[in-house]
C-alpha cells in the first residue's frame, strides 16, 4: 500500500516466483486452448478462475469469461436461478482475484461488467467497497467503482459527499477522497442542488474545510491539490470569454495591398502590409473553444460577405478547439475607393455554439468594431525591401520614440474591456476570497517554510492581480509581480527537481509584467533600421531578448506584433506563438529549442519571412522527450503530397531530415539563420535551400 519501502527480492522468493510462473503458464495454455475452441464447460471455467485468482492481470481470461457467461446465458435464459448463479460465480471469481491484487484493472472492469447486467445486488457491492476502502482508503480503483455503484444505485451526491468527509476526517492524506469530493461538488454546484447554492457559500465552507488540512500538515500535498481546485472554481469564469482581438476594438487599420508602407506617415502598430490581398482577423479566448464559424461570429462590412468567411483554429494539434481563431478578410479594392476608411463590426456570443472543452457556451455577447483603410504604395518601396537583409544586431535597433504613443496598442487593450462589463457582482466576493486566502497562506509561511505553500501563494497573488486588473482595467498594475518572481526564484532553489516548472511560471509572470501597461511594453519596442537604408517598412520590433524566458505567454496582448526578437532566452517551446498571425520577422536565436518539432507553431504563421533559429540545440538530443507526440513520415499530418525523397540527399539519414521537412515545407521564408545547431552542416543547408525555394539569405550569405 502506501509508505512501505520496496525490498530487494530474496533468492528463495525468486525461486517461488519461477515456480508460480510455471504453474501460470500451464493454466494459461489450457485457457487459450479452451478459448480458441469455445469450450465453456464447468471444468474449463474452473481453469480460468484458477488462473485469474493467481494472476488477475490476464485480460484474455476475463474476456474469455465474458464470452462464457454470454454463451451459458443463451442456454439457460428461462431459469432465473441459473442466471443468478452464473453472475454470482463471476462476482466470486472477481472477489478472489481482488484479494490477490486489489488494484487489478481487469478484475474491477469485469465486476462493472457483471453489475451492469443488472442481476446482482448493489447493496452487497457497497459492503464490499467498505471493506476495500477500510483496507486502503486511497485505492482509486475502489473509488472509481464506488462512483459507478453510486450512479447505478442512484445514491444522491450529497450522501457520497458525506462519505468523502468521513474518510477525509479519518485521514486527510487521501488524493482519491479529495478528488471525489471535487467531482461530487462540481455536479452539485452545476445543478444548484438544494443546500449547494449559492456557489459562493459552498466554496467558503470548502475553503474552511481544506484549511484544516493545510495547516495541520502543510507538507501533505493532497489538501493543496483540492485548494488549487477551489481556487480554479473561484477565479475561472463559468463560460468562455473573448479576451482579445486583432484588429483591436476602435482601431483604424491601414493596409497596403502591394509593396511596402510609407513609414513616416503611419503608425507601425496599426499598419499592416499584405502581399496576398487579405488581412487576418484574430479572436483570442480565455480558454480553448470549438464552434467558431460564420454562424456564431458575424462580421459586418461593405466589402465582405460574412458567409464566405472561413474560421480556422490556431492549434498545432489536429483538434478543432483552440484559444485563438483566425479568418482572412479580402482587402478592399484600392483602385475603386482610395483612402476610404471602411467600418467593420464583429459580433459573437449572441447565439450559442461557441463552446468550451468542458461544454459551457460562450453566452456573453461581445461586439467590437474597427476601420480599414487601404494605402496604395509605390513599387519603389517594394523593390527595396525585397533586397535587404535583416540584421538582428543591437545597433540596428533604436528606442521607439514617444511621439506615436497615442496610437500604441495599449489603448486598444483598455477599450477591449467593454466585453467584461457583464461579469456579475460576485467578483467582489472573488477578490475578497483571494485576499483572505493570501493572508492565510502568508500566515502559514510565517510559521514554516513550505514549498507548495509558496507555490500556492504565488498562484494566489497572480490570480489576485489578474482579478484586480479585470475589475479596474485602467490601472493595469501588477502590484505583486516582484514578490511572485522572488517566490519562484526561492522555489527553484528549494526544489531544484522542479525548477523547470517554476522557471516557466516565472516566464509567464515576466511577460505579464512587460505587457501589463503601455510604459513597460514601450520600453521593449524598438525601431529597426538597417545600416544602408532609412527603414525596413518602418517596422517596430518587440524585443523580448535576454529575459531568461523559458516559455511564451500573454500572447493575447501581442497579437499586433510583426517583428519579434526572442533571442538569448531559454525557450524550449514556442507554443502560443501560433496566435501571432501578423508575425513576419522572428528571432529565436540563442535559445534551448531542441528539435524541429518544437517549431511546430511556426507552421501556422503564414506571413513569416525572416526566421533566425541559430544557436539552439536542434539535433543535439536524439529524442525530444518533452513531447509525447510528434509528426512522423508515417503520420498523416504532413499531408498526402509527400515528396520528401526529392529533397533528401541519397546518403543522408532520413530521420534527421523529415522533421525539418515537415516544418519548413510550404514556408515562404526569404531569410533563414540556422548556424550553431548540432544538425547544421553543408548537406543539411543544401537540403533546406531545396525545400525553401524563396530563400535569399542563409546564415547571412546571399544565395544566387
Amino acid at each position, binding site marked *: 500500500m502506501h509508505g512501505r519501502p520496496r525490498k530487494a527480492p530474496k533468492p528463495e522468493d525468486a525461486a517461488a516466483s519461477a515456480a508460480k510462473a510455471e504453474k501460470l503458464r500451464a493454466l494459461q495454455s489450457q485457457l487459450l486452448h479452451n478459448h480458441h475452441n469455445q469450450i465453456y464447460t464447468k471444468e474449463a471455467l474452473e481453469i480460468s478462475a484458477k488462473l485469474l485468482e493467481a494472476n488477475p492481470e490476464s485480460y484474455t481470461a476475463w474476456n474469455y469469461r465474458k464470452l462464457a457467461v454470454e454463451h451459458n446465458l443463451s442456454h439457460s435464459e428461462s431459469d432465473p436461478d441459473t442466471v443468478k448463479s452464473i453472475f454470482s460465480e463471476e462476482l466470486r471469481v472477481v472477489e478472489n482475484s481482488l484479494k490477490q491484487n486489489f488494484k487489478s484493472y481487469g478484475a474491477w472492469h469485469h465486476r462493472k461488467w457483471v453489475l451492469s447486467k443488472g442481476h446482482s445486488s448493489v447493496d452487497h457491492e457497497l459492503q464490499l467497497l467498505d471493506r476495500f476502502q477500510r483496507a486502503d482508503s486511497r485505492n482509486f480503483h475502489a473509488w472509481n467503482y464506488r462512483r459507478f455503484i453510486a450512479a447505478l444505485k442512484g445514491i444522491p451526491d450529497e450522501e457520497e459527499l458525506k462519505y468523502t468527509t468521513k474518510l477525509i476526517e479519518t485521514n486527510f492524506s487521501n488524493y482519491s477522497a479529495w478528488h471525489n469530493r471535487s467531482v461530487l461538488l462540481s455536479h452539485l454546484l452545476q445543478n444548484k442542488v438544494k443546500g449547494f447554492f449559492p456557489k459562493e457559500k459552498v466554496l467558503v465552507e470548502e475553503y474552511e474545510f481544506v484549511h484544516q488540512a493545510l*495547516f495541520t500538515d*502543510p507538507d501533505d500535498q493532497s489538501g493543496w491539490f483540492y485548494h488549487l481546485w477551489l481556487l480554479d472554481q473561484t477565479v475561472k469564469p463559468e463560460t468562455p470569454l473573448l479576451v482579445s482581438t486583432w484588429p483591436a476594438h476602435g482601431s483604424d487599420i491601414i493596409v497596403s495591398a502591394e509593396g511596402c508602407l510609407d513609414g513616416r506617415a503611419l503608425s507601425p502598430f496599426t499598419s499592416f502590409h499584405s502581399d496576398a490581398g487579405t488581412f487576418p482577423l484574430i479572436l483570442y479566448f480565455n480558454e480553448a473553444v470549438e464552434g467558431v464559424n460564420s454562424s456564431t461570429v458575424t462580421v459586418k462590412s461593405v466589402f465582405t460577405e460574412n458567409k464566405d468567411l472561413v474560421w480556422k483554429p490556431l492549434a498545432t494539434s489536429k483538434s478543432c478547439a483552440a484559444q485563438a481563431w483566425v479568418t482572412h478578410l479580402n482587402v478592399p479594392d484600392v483602385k475603386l475607393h482610395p483612402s476610404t476608411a471602411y467600418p467593420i463590426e464583429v459580433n459573437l456570443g449572441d447565439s450559442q455554439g461557441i463552446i468550451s472543452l468542458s461544454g459551457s457556451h460562450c453566452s456573453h455577447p461581445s461586439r467590437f468594431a474597427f476601420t480599414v483603410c487601404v494605402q496604395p504604395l509605390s513599387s519603389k518601396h517594394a523593390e527595396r525591401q525585397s533586397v535587404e537583409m535583416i540584421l538582428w544586431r543591437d545597433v540596428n535597433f533604436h528606442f521607439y520614440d514617444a511621439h506615436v504613443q497615442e496610437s500604441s496598442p495599449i489603448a486598444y487593450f483598455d477599450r477591449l474591456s467593454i466585453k467584461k462589463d457583464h461579469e456579475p457582482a460576485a467578483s467582489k466576493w472573488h477578490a475578497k476570497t483571494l485576499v483572505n486566502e493570501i493572508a492565510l497562506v502568508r500566515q502559514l509561511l510565517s510559521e*514554516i517554510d513550505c514549498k507548495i505553500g509558496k507555490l500556492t501563494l504565488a498562484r494566489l497573488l497572480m490570480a489576485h492581480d489578474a482579478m484586480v486588473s479585470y475589475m479596474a482595467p485602467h490601472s493595469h498594475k501588477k502590484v505583486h509581480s516582484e514578490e511572485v518572481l522572488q517566490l519562484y526564484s526561492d522555489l527553484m532553489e528549494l526544489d531544484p527537481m522542479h525548477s523547470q516548472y517554476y522557471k516557466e511560471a516565472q516566464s509567464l509572470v515576466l511577460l505579464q509584467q512587460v505587457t501589463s501597461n503601455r510604459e513597460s511594453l514601450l520600453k521593449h519596442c524598438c525601431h529597426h533600421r538597417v545600416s544602408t537604408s532609412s527603414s525596413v517598412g518602418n517596422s517596430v520590433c518587440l524585443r523580448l531578448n535576454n529575459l531568461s524566458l523559458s516559455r511564451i505567454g500573454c500572447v493575447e496582448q501581442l497579437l499586433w506584433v510583426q517583428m519579434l526578437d526572442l533571442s538569448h532566452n531559454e525557450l524550449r517551446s514556442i507554443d502560443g506563438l501560433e496566435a501571432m498571425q501578423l508575425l513576419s520577422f522572428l528571432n529565436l536565436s540563442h535559445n534551448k529549442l531542441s528539435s524541429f518539432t518544437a517549431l511546430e507553431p511556426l507552421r501556422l504563421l503564414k506571413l513569416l519571412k525572416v526566421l533566425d533559429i541559430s544557436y539552439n540545440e536542434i539535433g543535439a538530443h536524439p529524442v525530444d522527450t518533452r513531447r509525447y507526440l510528434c509528426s512522423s513520415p508515417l503520420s498523416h499530418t504532413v499531408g498526402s503530397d509527400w515528396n520528401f525523397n526529392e529533397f533528401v540527399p541519397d546518403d543522408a539519414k532520413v530521420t534527421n531530415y523529415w522533421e525539418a521537412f515537415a516544418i519548413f515545407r510550404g514556408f515562404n521564408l526569404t531569410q533563414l539563420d540556422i548556424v550553431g545547431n548540432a544538425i547544421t552542416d553543408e548537406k543539411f543547408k543544401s537540403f533546406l535551400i531545396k525545400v525553401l525555394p524563396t530563400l535569399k539569405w542563409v546564415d547571412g550569405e546571399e544565395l544566387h
Partner: protein
Amino acid sequence: MDETPSYPPIEPTDFDLIVVGTGLPQSVIAAAASSAGKSVLHLDSNSFYGSHFSSLNLDEFSSFLTSQSAVHSSHPNPPSSVAADAAEYVALDLKTRPMYSDVEITSHSSDPVEHSRKFNLDVSGPRVLFCADAAVDLMLKSGASQYLEFKSIDASFVCDADGRFSTVPDSRAAIFKDRSLSLTEKNQLMRFFKLIQGHLAASDEAENDSNARISEDDLESPFVEFLNKMRLPPKIKSMILYAIAMADYDQDSIEVCKDVLDTKIGIDRLALYHSSVGRFPNALGALIYPIYGQGELTQAFCRRAAVKGCIYVLRMPVIALLMEKESGHCKGVRLASGQDIFSQKLLVDPSFIVPVPVAPSQPDCMPESSQVINLVDAKQKVARGICIMKSSLKPDVSNFVFVYPPRSLYPEQAMAIRAVQIGSNLGVCPSGMFVLYLSTLCNDATQGKELLQAAIKSLFTLPVSGNPENSSSVHSENMEEVKPTLLWSALYTQELVMGSFESISSTSMPDGNLNYNVLLDATVKLFHQMYPQEEFFPETTSPENVEDDDGLSLES
C-alpha cells in the same frame, strides 16, 4: 466470619510458591511462575478475584471498602494441627492494616442500589489501557488476552472549572477535525508531534540522522521548559503535559511540583500515546477498556495460571505465618481452615503486616530492609471517587477519559485530576446509567477530597436536601447544558504501598496512574528477584501464543 466454613484439605501441602491475594501483580506472578514450571498455590480471603484490583457490584464494593478501611481484627487462632512443641517452626499471627481511609459513600437515589448486581465497579479506578502499553503486550505474550474483550475509549478531553470539555487533539486526524484550535495552533501542535516522531525514528536507527534528534541537553531539561522552547501556546502545552504525557503535578510551579517530568520521559509518554493510536485497526484512538471492568484482567491472568497448574482457593484467609525456629525463615502459612501449607517462597498482599520474627537466632540472616518492610509511604496517597449518574457528562459520547490540569479548578490546585467515564455498553452498570471514576494524588485525605469534590461540583447538579439557598443559586446560574444529577457516590483515600522483595515478598497497591505500566515494571522486577534463573513468560510456539497484535479482541 466466626464460623470458618469447612474446607476439604488442600493437597499437596508443599508448594514452590504461595501467593496470598489475587491482585493484578500477584496474579501475573502466579501465572508467570506457573508458566515457568513452579507449583503455585494462590489464595484469597475474598469470595472474588482481584483484591484491590477487582471490579465489584455495588454491595460488594461497599463492604470491601468498609472491611479494608477498619483495622482488621485478626481471626481467632484455630488450634494448630501440629503440636507446637513438636514443630521446628512457630506460627506468627498475621495482621492486616487498613489500605483505605475516609470512605464516604453517599446514596442520593435508590436506583443504583436496587440494581447493585448489575454494577462492576473498579476498586482501582480510573484505569484504562493504552493500545501499545506493557499490559497489552503482556496479555498477548502470556495468552491472557484470549480471555478478554476490549472496547475503544471514544475520546479524550481536558476539562475546566465550569465543566466544559475540550477535545484533546492527540493525532493527525484529531488535529484536522478539531475546531477549537486555531489554524496556527494546529500547525504548531502537528509540527511538535512531527518533531517527536522524527526524534524517535532517528533514535531507533543508527547515528546517521542526528539532525532529527533532540539534543541531550534538551532531553535532560524539564519537559515543560522544552515545550516553552518550542513556543507552544499555554493551551497546547497543558494538553500535552496533562492529557497526553499524563503529568500529575503542576509542572509550571517548581515549589509544589513533586515530580518534574523531564523531556526524555515526556517524549516516551508521547511515543506510547502515538504508537497506541492505530495499533489495532478497529480501535478508534489510543485507549481501550476491558468489557466488564478492570477486574477482568486479574481473572484472565489467574485463568492463565490455572491452565499452567496453579491451584486456586478463594474464601480462604491466611491467619499465620510459619517461621522456622532456628533461622527465622518463613516456611509456609496457616490457613483459616487450620491447615498448614509449606512453601519455599511466599508472596503476600500489601495489606499484611509481616511480623518481625520472635527470636532471630542468626541476626545476619535478617536483611536490614526488613525493618522497614511494608512501611507505608505516608507522604503519598491517592484519593479516588466513583460517581453514578443517569446521563453522560458529554451528551454524544459514553466512554471517555478526561483530565483537570493543575490550577484548572482553583488556583491552589497543584495536582491533576484524572477521570474516566464508562457507560453500560462496557458491561459495568445497568443500561441507562454511567459510571465516573476520579482520582488524584494527594498528601492527605483532606486535600484529596477537596480536589475530588471540586471536580464533582463542576460536573454535577448536586441533589439539594432542603437547602433553599443552594437550590436558588443552582437555578440562577441558568446553565445552558443541563448537568447530570449525581445518584450515588463513593469517595475514599487509598494508601500507596510499593511492593518489596524480602524473605516474604509483597506486591504493590494500585498506583495513581491511568495504566499499569509502572506497576507491571515493578512486578516483572519482583519476579526476576524471586526467580533469577527463570524467564518471565518464555516465548513458546504453542498456537495460542503465536497470535499477533490482532489477537486482542476489540469490539468496535
